[in-house]
Structure formats: structure tokens, C-alpha cells
């Protein structure tokens, strides 16, 4: 009978981690719906980027206030999780504060956790104020209505509850308070419970302990349904981020093959196309999520909807419909829809009459982009909305000939006279004599 708590704990743990693992599998499956892309180059630079940008938060702190608050929550999250390890060992083996065996160091550790917990509470409070009282502009865009807004707040509430549980747990742990080492903050909470009987205090301690670990497991499982996946995906995402100059747009190999054939005088135009012709993709550009490459899909799951991209975007700033954040959110939402479709149809995608283009991202948004790279520069986790915009323009132009009229005129001019305006190529050097 005395093993009952241990068994219950093990069951909760297995369910909590198991369900999360199941969703991670789904996440990986969805990301792999994307096209292949070779990102095996420059490993050392990639590791360095991950260390600097994700681990070191180098781009977060470019905005000092949000950056500092985020670093506090991030450090708090990582460090306080050492405590989770202790909780798991205690829970499985029926021990109590097993790490306290390490001696005085334990006091320092828990003391640090308690201070961090208070800092996290303060930071989370300020985050909440920024979202709900100050109402920073970038949290108020149309795409932030409804679930994205609630999601942002739910995460903050989660953090408040977890931190409070942690502090109350420490405050009501008599043995820990008696140690008088590491209870830097919780010693001031203990007096609140002074009128209660020892057994009641013990029940509170046990309850908060169970709620704390359950809360962490619930939060872990909440990630998949939330924008908060960035706490895990920021790492691979920064690893696979762009390494080339931002101005370099990728080369479409399939087009190169065709252009080479067209330009090669030795090619027999009537020859039967060789086998390689099969390598030509069914379509140029992107109209749905499966046409994107898997790094672009990873990007969409990594986005935590902070809106730094949108706040820097010249189109967004001047009231156009385009919002780079919405491009990422739409991509993720469509990918989730496709994933659910596959789940519901026993592993194969059943045509649903929808696609990323038009049903999620409108043409008006795509054509408003100036390709200035402000969004990719602003993103703290190396997400690239611009590549998705360009790929979708490619589909519009090369598959549908659906560019705006003025752009079609510009392209006709380039084709006919080698300049975007209707001037004769033979007049190209006239400026010399003017």
C-alpha cells in the first residue's frame, strides 16, 4: 500500500511524457511533409548560430526590455527544471528532496531557484501588462485576435501558477524550512500558514508538490497546441537557418535545366525527352504547404508570434495587409489542417479543396512585399517568411501567369528589350552623349 503514491506518480509521468511523445511524432511527420532541402553544409557555423542565437539569445536582446524579460523567464525555465529532476526521482522512489544530500550546495541551488521564481513572476507580470494593458501594437494585429491572444495569456498564467506552486511548496515544507538554507523567499511565505496545524500544512505541501509536477506535465503537453513550441524548436530552427547573404534568393534547379536546354544549340528540339525529365517537378513554386521545404515548415512551428517581423515590415507599417507573422501562422495552421486530414484518412491526404494560397494567404499580401529582409533580420529565431512569399509568387507567375498587370508589362519589357522599361537596348549607352 505504501507504494501507491510511487505507482500513481509513475503512471502520471508515463501518460504525460507518452502523450507528448506521440504529438512530437506527429510534429515530425508533418514537418517531413515538406520537400527535401540540403542543409548538411557548414556544420560548425550552424552549431555556432544555434549557440549564439538560441542558447545565447543574441537576437532577443536587440529589443532591450522584451529581451531582458525574456532572458529572465528563459533562464528561470531552464534552471528551475533542475528541480523537476529532483521531483521525478523523489516521486518514483518515495524519497524527499533527494538532492539535499549534496549538502550546502543544495541551499544555494534552491535559493537561486526561489529568487528566479520571483523574477519570473515579475517578468511574466510585465509581459501580461504589455499584452493586455499597454496593448503594444504588435500584439494587436488582426491575426492576433481569438486563439493567438488567449494562447499568449494562457502561457503566462501557466507560468504564474507553476512559480506560485513552487514557492508555496517550499514554504510549507517544514523540514526544508528548518534547514534554513535556501529558503530565501519562501521563509517570508511560511508565516501565512502559521495558524494551521502541522498536518494541514503537510497536506498543503503534498498538494502543491503534486500540482507542481502535474502542472509541468500539462504544460509540456500544451506546447504542441500552442505557439510555445519555440522553447524546443528554436534550437533546430536556428541550426537550419540561412547562412548565405540575405539578398541571395535560392536558385530553382528545375528552371536551370530547362533554360540550359533552351539555350543549348546542340539540343535536338525533337528528341524524345530523356528519363531525367521526370525530375522536373509537377509545379513551379508553392501553392500549398507540401510544396514548401521542410525547413520552411519547421519555421512555421517555431514561430512564437512575437510580431517583431511584422512591426519592422514596411508593408505592415504602412497599413498594407501583409504581415510576415501571419504568413508563418497561416503556414502552420494549414499544415496542422493537412496533418489532421492525414490522421483522419488512415495516413494519406485526402483532397479537401483547400490550399495555402487564397484560402489562407491572399495574393494581395504576397504582392505587397518589398523583399527588404526586415522580417528575417528581426526574427529572434531565424525564421524566413520572405522565402515563403517568394515561392508563392513563383507559383502565381510561373504556373498561373497571375502577376499584377504592371509587373507583366515590366517582364515583357525585360524579355523584349532587356530593361524593365520600354527602351531600346541599342540606346543603352546614349547617356554618354547626353
Amino acid at each position, binding site marked *: 500500500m505504501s507504494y501507491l503514491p510511487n505507482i500513481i506518480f509513475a503512471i502520471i509521468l508515463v501518460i504525460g511524457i507518452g502523450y507528448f511523445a506521440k504529438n512530437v511524432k506527429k510534429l515530425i511527420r508533418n514537418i517531413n511533409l515538406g520537400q527535401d532541402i540540403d542543409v548538411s553544409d557548414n556544420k560548425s557555423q550552424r552549431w555556432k548560430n544555434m549557440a549564439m542565437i538560441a542558447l545565447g539569445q543574441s537576437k532577443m536582446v536587440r529589443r532591450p526590455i522584451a529581451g531582458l524579460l525574456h532572458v529572465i523567464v528563459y533562464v528561470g525555465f531552464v534552471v528551475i527544471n533542475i528541480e523537476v529532476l529532483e521531483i521525478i526521482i523523489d516521486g518514483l522512489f518515495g524519497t524527499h528532496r533527494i538532492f539535499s544530500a549534496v549538502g550546502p550546495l543544495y541551499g544555494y541551488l534552491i535559493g537561486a531557484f526561489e529568487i528566479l521564481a520571483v523574477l519570473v513572476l515579475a517578468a511574466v507580470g510585465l509581459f501580461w501588462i504589455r499584452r493586455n494593458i499597454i496593448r503594444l501594437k504588435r500584439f494587436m494585429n488582426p491575426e492576433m485576435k481569438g486563439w493567438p491572444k488567449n494562447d499568449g495569456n494562457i502561457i503566462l498564467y501557466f507560468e504564474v501558477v507553476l512559480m506560485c506552486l513552487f514557492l508555496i511548496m517550499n514554504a510549507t515544507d517544514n523540514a526544508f524550512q528548518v534547514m534554513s538554507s535556501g529558503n530565501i523567499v519562501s521563509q517570508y511565505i511560511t508565516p501565512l500558514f502559521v495558524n494551521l496545524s502541522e498536518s494541514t500544512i503537510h497536506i498543503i505541501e503534498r498538494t502543491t508538490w503534486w500540482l507542481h509536477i502535474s502542472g509541468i506535465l500539462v504544460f509540456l503537453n500544451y506546447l504542441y497546441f500552442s505557439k510555445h513550441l519555440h522553447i524546443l524548436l528554436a534550437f533546430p530552427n536556428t541550426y537550419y537557418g540561412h547562412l548565405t547573404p540575405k539578398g541571395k534568393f535560392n536558385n530553382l534547379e528545375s528552371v536551370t535545366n530547362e533554360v540550359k536546354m533552351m539555350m543549348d544549340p546542340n539540343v535536338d528540339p525533337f528528341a524524345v525527352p530523356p528519363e531525367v525529365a521526370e525530375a522536373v517537378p509537377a509545379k513551379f513554386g508553392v501553392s500549398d504547404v507540401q510544396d514548401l521545404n521542410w525547413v520552411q515548415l519547421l519555421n512555421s512551428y517555431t514561430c512564437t508570434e512575437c510580431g517583431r517581423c511584422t512591426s519592422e515590415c514596411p508593408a505592415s507599417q504602412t497599413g498594407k495587409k501583409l504581415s510576415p507573422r501571419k504568413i508563418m501562422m497561416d503556414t502552420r495552421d494549414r499544415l496542422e489542417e493537412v496533418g489532421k486530414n492525414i490522421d483522419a484518412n488512415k495516413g494519406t491526404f485526402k483532397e479537401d479543396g483547400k490550399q495555402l494560397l487564397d484560402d489562407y494567404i491572399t495574393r494581395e499580401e504576397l504582392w505587397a512585399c518589398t523583399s527588404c529582409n526586415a522580417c528575417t533580420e528581426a526574427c529572434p529565431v531565424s525564421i524566413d517568411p520572405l522565402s515563403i512569399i517568394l515561392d508563392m509568387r513563383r507559383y502565381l507567375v510561373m504556373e498561373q501567369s497571375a502577376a499584377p498587370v504592371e509587373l507583366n508589362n515590366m517582364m515583357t519589357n525585360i*524579355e523584349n528589350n532587356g530593361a524593365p522599361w520600354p*527602351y531600346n537596348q541599342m540606346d543603352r549607352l546614349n547617356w554618354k552623349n547626353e
Partner: protein
Amino acid sequence: MSETMKVPTMAEYMAQGKQPEVLFWVGCAGSFDDRAKKITKAFVKLLNRANVEFAVLGTEESCTGDPAKRSGNEFLFQMQAVTNIEVMNAYEIKKIVTACPHCFNTIKNEYPELGGSYEVMHHTQFLKTLLDEGRLTIEGGKFKGKRITFHDPCYLGRANDVYEAPRDLIKKLEVELIEMRKCKKNGLCCGAGGAQMFKEPEKGDKDVNVERTEQAMEVKPDIIAAGCPFCNTMMTDGVKAKEKEDSIEVMDIAELIANAEDL
């Protein structure tokens, strides 16, 4: 004017069996746009002054394909690129300078995969080397003491991390270089990139170039310096929209230097 400008073509160099030091890629704006042609001429005067042996492709030059690529027309882009590369490789070109950041970016970053690998420099970088090598000297001249702010072209700055060369040149003019709130990595686009130059903007509250001009006006400049013919047009239009054309001039860095020297 034209008597003082020497603009040899690659074909002429070839005929003499010689190779120039650098190819000046003029670009479509530099060749055809009335405002940008002034930038082209200013830069040529500086090249002449520094005795740089350069050549242009003249009628053999064609659009790099940048606006086509950024509109999504990869076919047209690659056709342009392959044609240009064929011409340049036939002339065995090694080094290119251009006053257009879009041409600069495209030739530098997107031509190598299609068979065209060259050392490509923006004209501000090239002028900076001329200065460093002592082939060109700059004095403040008539701009001494003026307030100048530099608008970073996206395809020079963020796209290729060139921020200092243009600023170093401006500082040589003994002027007061003042930075806008949004500059360098955080610079705001003029609104022309991504082929926007060739179409009407989508519906919104404001035009991007007006927003950017307002940011420039915050620092009360006498001159807005640009390093891109398209930015130049957009900022000039922005200044006109704010009815400030009497007090704020928009000038390319090559023009600033050439004018300072009264070339």
C-alpha cells in the same frame, strides 16, 4: 560635358587586345532613367579622375533579371542571367563595379550558381578602395558642415552587410553625418524593392517612401544621401510629397563626391 567623359566599351578594349581593370555595370536605371543617368555620369567622372581603366558593356548589357526574379519569374531571370554571363565570360571579366545595389546583389550572389563568378563591388566600396589606395582624394568642398543622413539600401545593407563604405565616404566630405532612428540593420525600406518600383502599391494608409522620408526629416538633414537609383527616386518623391524639395536634396554618394570636387 561629354568631351570630358571617357566611357570606353568592352568591345573597344577587346579590339585593342586589352583588358580593363574593372567592368562598370551601369544597369537599366543608370542607363535609361533621367535621374539615375546623373549618378552614372558622376561616377564615371570620378573613375576618369582616378585614372581607372574601366569599360562598360554598352549595348551588350541587359537587365540582370533582379525584378523578374523577385516577382517570381525564375524563367525570365535565368534567361537574363545566362545571357549576361555568356557575354561577360566571353570578355573574361573578373571584376565588376555597379552603382545599383540590386544589380550588385544579383550578380554577386545569384550569378555564381549559373556559371558567372566575379568579384563584385558596389560603387561606394570601389570608391572607398580608390581613396584608401590614394588614387582619389576627397575634400569637403561645398558640402562642408552640411547635415547629411544616409538611407541604407536594403540590397546593400541587410542583404549584403555593407554599411560602412558609404558612411566612410560621406565622412570624408567633412559633413555632419547623422543617423536616422532606423538605420543600418534596422533601416526601413524605401518601398521600391521586390519589383514594387514597377507597380502601384497595395492598399494601405500610407506609401512606404513617405514613411521613410518622414523618418529622414526627423533628423533635419540638408541632404539625404542614397546609394541606389531606386531609393533615390523613392526618396525624391517622398521629399516632394512632403513639399520639402526646397530644403532637402536627395543625392547619390557618387554625386556628392563629384559635386564637392566640382567635377
